[in-house]
């Protein structure tokens, strides 16, 4: 695995070629595309992100980027993310390797503008932005993992920064997550689980926030083995508070409960920051 500096460099380079590709202008329209493709091909970290995802996936990109019986182009995104990634990657390779004109492809997707540059950018956005987003997400995850490992070492060197006294004995330190705190957290989480049932939010959203809450609880119980993940889950919980469903009815109680949890957990997050 590379070190964090190298990942940061790849992330920056990738974002630059991707940005150039996304803001392709008429007159040089095929160059940013070729640069983007050759960067992906030669940077093994990125190539591997793609290959890991599409390994063993059987899908023909023509099903995603096709033409109907009247010769009109369409993009029909497959449900499976792997298939979508494979379709975008194969389509990109196909365009570059066969010198297909980006201009003529773009003209098949009207975008309410008269400028050719707008057509090009609209098409690239529709066809390839999800691939760029996916690669960036995966790069971020890799970087979090590397940072987490590094932080894990830092934390264990710093003896007993956060310690859970299993036997209820009092450890004299400000940083200890003591039994009472954990019990308090468990109680709040129980109320959250109770209340959330009556709040009108999407099941996926409910599951996500409950997963994050459980992750926070687990991490505090195990003296924070994965600080980066704890912080991310904690931030997700905080952002959930902006959900408009928390403004009315049972949502108000839920917001109060979550706020209580946030208040208890915040000091621990501040310490690992």
């Amino acid at each position, binding site marked *: 695995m590379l070190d964090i500096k190298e990942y*940061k460099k790849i*992330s*920056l380079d990738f*974002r*630059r070629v*991707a*940005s150039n590709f*996304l*803001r392709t202008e008429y007159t040089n329209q095929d160059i940013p595309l070729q640069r983007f493709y050759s960067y992906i091909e030669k940077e093994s970290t990125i190539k591997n992100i793609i290959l890991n995802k599409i390994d063993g996936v059987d899908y023909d990109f023509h099903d995603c980027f096709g033409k109907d019986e009247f010769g009109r182009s369409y993009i029909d995104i497959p449900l499976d993310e792997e298939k979508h990634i494979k379709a975008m990657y194969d389509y990109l390779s196909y365009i570059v390797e066969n010198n297909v004109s980006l201009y003529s492809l773009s003209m098949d997707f009207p975008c309410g503008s008269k400028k050719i540059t707008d057509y090009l950018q609209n098409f690239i956005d529709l066809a390839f932005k999800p691939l760029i987003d996916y690669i*960036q997400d995966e790069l*971020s*995850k890799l*970087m*979090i993992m590397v940072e987490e490992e590094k932080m894990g070492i830092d934390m264990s060197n710093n003896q007993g920064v956060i310690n859970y006294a299993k036997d209820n004995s009092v450890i004299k330190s400000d940083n200890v997550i003591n039994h009472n705190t954990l019990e308090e957290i468990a109680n709040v989480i129980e109320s959250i689980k109770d209340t959330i049932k009556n709040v009108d939010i999407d099941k996926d959203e409910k599951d996500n926030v409950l997963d994050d809450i459980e992750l926070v609880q687990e991490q505090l119980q195990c003296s924070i083995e994965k600080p980066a993940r704890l912080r*991310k889950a904690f*931030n997700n919980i*905080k*952002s959930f*508070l*902006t959900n408009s469903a928390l403004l009315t009815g049972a949502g108000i109680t839920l917001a109060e409960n979550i706020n209580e949890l946030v208040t208890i957990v915040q000091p621990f997050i501040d310490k690992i920051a």
Partner: protein
Amino acid sequence: MADIEFKFQIEADDDGYVSYECPFCKSTFSLNASEVQKDDPVYTEMYCPYCGLNDVPTNFYTKEVIEQTQNIAMNYMIDEINKAFKKITKNNNKYVKMTYKPLKNQSIKDLKTKEGTEEIFECKNCSNHVKVDYYLGKTKVYCAFCGIDIC
């Protein structure tokens, strides 16, 4: 026609930050006005702190700023037209009579950067700052100036 330069001002918030909007993901963020206006180095590109993509700084102007610049340009044109017509009406003779009513200028609002639940991050690489919406803060925050990921 020679290039005409228009000047406009955006009022910063209490911390001295002004708003920008990402052309890729449309998220808004704020930058320290004095850091953006630095002469050395002059920043010719800007990165979105949320999605990390980059473009020229002018493409990061918010809708309000763009509207404002258009209004200022429009007012300039209206003034020029009014001046031209004034000249014509002065030269009226007994055969041609021309009167004119000046066009009204577009109203120019004061641009003020709104304050919200935001957090300021400092870049360890270039020591500039970005102010991002805490709740939008996904896994990463990128430096708007040098593009490195800050956290």
